[in-house]
């Protein structure tokens, strides 16, 4: 769960480490405690900050769920937020690529 922020708007201090998880993104975590910090898109440097870093998720409202059909069957997120399937998520972010 993450909060989108504008590219370049976040200043990071401390023991963050990143892992390039795909061609388009890297994941940040704390080297000292392993806490999830962000999901960052490489093309613009924008950080989607882990919602758990903030008290009460900074009061944010859940708007959209990606890869919703891929969620393990044991749980589902309640609510009427937008839910995109794997295919819809990929189409949203990589519209020029061949569909899987």
């Amino acid at each position, binding site marked *: *769960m*993450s909060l989108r922020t504008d590219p370049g708007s976040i200043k990071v201090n401390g023991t963050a*480490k990143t*892992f390039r*998880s795909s061609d388009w993104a890297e*994941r*940040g*975590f704390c*080297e*000292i*405690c*392993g*806490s*999830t910090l962000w999901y960052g898109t490489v093309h613009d440097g924008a950080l989607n900050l*882990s*919602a*758990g*870093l903030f008290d*009460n*998720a900074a*009061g*944010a*409202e*859940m708007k959209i769920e990606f890869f919703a059909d891929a969620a*393990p*069957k*044991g*749980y*589902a*997120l*309640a*609510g009427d937020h937008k839910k995109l399937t794997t295919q819809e998520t990929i189409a949203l972010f990589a519209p020029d690529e061949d569909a899987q």
Partner: protein
Amino acid sequence: MTRSAVGKCLCGDVRFEAQDVPETFGVCHCEMCRRWTGSALLEVSIPEQSLVRHGKEHIATRQTSEWAERGWCRNCGTGLFYRVTMAGEWSGSVDIPLGIFDDPNGFVMSHEIYIDFKPDSFAYAGEGRKQLTRQQCVEKFSLLGNDPADASQGRIDQGETT
């Protein structure tokens, strides 16, 4: 009923095989689990002796409270386990995040704890699991003691874990 299962972190440096895997998982909304995972810890509890890990040199650990430690992959940051270290009735098992199983399906949510600490922004659908507030947890699990909210009191412990 239990079964065997395998899993790994995102980068594959750490892999595990487990026996005696239950069909249920629990959810914890305490502040430590919230910060660590970004949402909540969805965990499958397995007897320690039923777990075999590969790539242990890639596991970093931290004693995050008086009673438990957490482990993650040094390379990709994937959360690997929560383990009670305090001797007593709650030691002897390892809690594995649901999502790192190769097949995370087939598990049923049996309990959801620290429910009063859950952020307003999300909730899990469905019914049937037992929900416990922080107070109910502290009363039920004596090892929680006074449950300090300040996770920075933990100490770092790099290297191989049991």
